[in-house]
């Protein structure tokens, strides 16, 4: 069965690795895009072409190559801004990844270099995250409260894998400085109710940040419509290269925030005893940035825009519906996360009774060439919440097919036979 909303066979031809045979003649069944996505020829070629013919440093070299590189790098920023509906291109900051974007924002709080009251933080102040966060949206906040004496609080998760909003008014209060949650869970697939959390945060004057690493690659995301304050995402999960991520932030907040890293190109003027800083976004881009990676991410955005994020979302929705049905047929499989299509994306994590996920993943890979992720997926507290050490996770993208989900189900039956 092929999707009605997008030509998967044509798309698959854009991704060279998908036609690769693994040792032993196994075809590759790549169901690990939530971990990192594969790259289309369009991205690979754009990066190769830039490295081969146009490469130089950006923002400082006064020659043809310097201006071509700068032009390509800054035009990647334009593309990213348009892709996520940023009101201004200057609100798009290139980072190394989503983790760096989250750390950058965390660093702005309780920082003596930042006297803006929205960012002051000390004992008695609170930060709110959730139990379903990736470690990258937990650890930077833990480090922040250790530095400042503030308190870290979190939303629980319901048995169905939803954010538990029952205690919202008690959790998010006048003491809350920022609420930072995942837009979509990297384990459960749950899409979180941003508007509800945001409404409460606005009532009490708290800022809101979204870790959108799992939503921007898979859904049309518009930061202006979301109306939050900060959004972090990463390039390698959205058919772009690794080493490049994005922080979008409201311009007036970014202007109020101190620089995160000091170095070249983030300054206006430097004396021996002090410096003044470049305007945003460059204030936050110290040193030579990942130039070709940013340009590659620009090409990734062109690629996704060409296909249409609505079509990508619809395709993944079909795959998810198909997979939810198919996995129900596997005996003793327990899905961790929403069982319906309602507010969920194409990430399915599960356990098989009596079989450790590492064994599941190993046999799926070695016998069938099926790549899934096994373990705690950098979300250990969420696994502790469900009382399990690990899960097996299949995650879909625009190039996956229902035939690959059939292969997964066949593989799981085989795993159960081995351990029967």
């Amino acid at each position, binding site marked *: 069965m092929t999707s009605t909303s997008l030509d998967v066979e044509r798309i698959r031809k854009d991704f060279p690795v998908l036609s690769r045979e693994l040792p032993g003649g196994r075809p590759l069944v790549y169901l690990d895009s939530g971990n990192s996505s594969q790259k289309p020829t369009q991205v690979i070629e754009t990066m190769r072409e830039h490295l081969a013919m146009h490469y130089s440093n950006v923002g400082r070299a006064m020659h043809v190559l310097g201006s071509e590189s700068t032009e390509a790098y800054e035009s990647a920023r334009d593309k990213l801004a348009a892709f996520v509906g940023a009101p201004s291109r200057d609100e798009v900051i290139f980072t190394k990844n989503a983790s760096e974007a989250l750390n950058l924002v965390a660093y702005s709080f309780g920082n003596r270099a930042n006297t803006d009251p929205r960012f002051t933080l000390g004992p008695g102040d609170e930060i709110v995250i959730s139990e379903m966060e990736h470690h990258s949206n937990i650890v930077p906040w833990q480090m922040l409260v250790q530095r400042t004496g503030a308190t870290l609080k979190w939303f629980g998760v319901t048995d169905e894998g939803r954010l538990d909003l029952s205690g919202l008014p008690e959790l998010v209060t006048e003491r809350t400085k920022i609420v930072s949650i995942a837009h979509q869970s990297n384990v459960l697939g749950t899409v979180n109710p941003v508007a509800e959390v945001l409404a409460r945060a606005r009532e009490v004057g708290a800022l809101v940040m979204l870790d959108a690493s799992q939503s921007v690659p898979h859904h049309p995301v518009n930061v202006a419509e979301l109306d939050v304050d900060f959004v972090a995402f990463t390039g390698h999960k959205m058919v772009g290269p690794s080493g490049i991520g994005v922080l979008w932030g409201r311009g007036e907040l970014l202007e109020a925030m101190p620089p995160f890293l000091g170095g070249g190109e983030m300054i206006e003027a430097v004396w021996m005893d002090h410096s003044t800083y470049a305007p945003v976004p460059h204030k936050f881009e110290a040193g030579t940035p990942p130039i070709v990676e940013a340009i590659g991410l620009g090409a990734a955005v062109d690629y996704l825009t060409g296909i249409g994020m609505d079509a990508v979302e619809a395709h993944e929705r079909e795959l998810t519906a198909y997979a939810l049905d198919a996995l129900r047929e596997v005996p003793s499989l327990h899905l961790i996360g929403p069982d319906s299509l309602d507010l969920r994306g194409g990430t399915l994590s599960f356990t098989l009774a009596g079989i450790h996920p*590492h064994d599941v993943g190993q046999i799926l*890979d*070695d016998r069938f060439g099926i790549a899934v992720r096994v*373990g705690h997926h950098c979300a250990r507290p969420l696994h502790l919440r469900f009382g399990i*050490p690990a899960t097996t996770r299949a995650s879909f993208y625009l190039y996956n097919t229902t035939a690959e989900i059939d292969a997964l189900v066949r593989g799981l039956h085989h795993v159960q036979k081995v*351990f029967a």
Partner: protein
Amino acid sequence: MIGESMYQELILEHYKHPQGRGLREPYDAEVHHVNPTCGDEITLRVKMGDAGKIEDVSYDGQGCSISQAAASVLHELTTGSTVEESLSVVAEFTRLMQGRGQVEADEDVLGDAVAFAGVAKFPARVKCALLSWMAYKDAVVRSAAG
């Protein structure tokens, strides 16, 4: 297929029917080891007997088939042997596991543990196989010190 060779019948047998599992009293030393990359963990106790012999190795834990079967085989090979003999088995098993599949196992020393030879080709899984064995080594050192 590569993976099937890792899951030797003997390993699956030990996984499904672990030998000596469960923590028992009395004991001379108890250790708790974890594999942070995958969350596998084991609690292991050693009871020394007369004449430098290991009277009992009892354990409990959670993890994949490789880590659980390795603990079961460890129990079989060490219980009743001398400390010295058992540590030479540990040394040989460690050499095999860290040999990236290039090391010829000494079957006379390793007995059933040779079944794990295939695991050595999977760097990500070597730690699973070694978890209980490193815990045992640690427990022996501690009981000697105590």
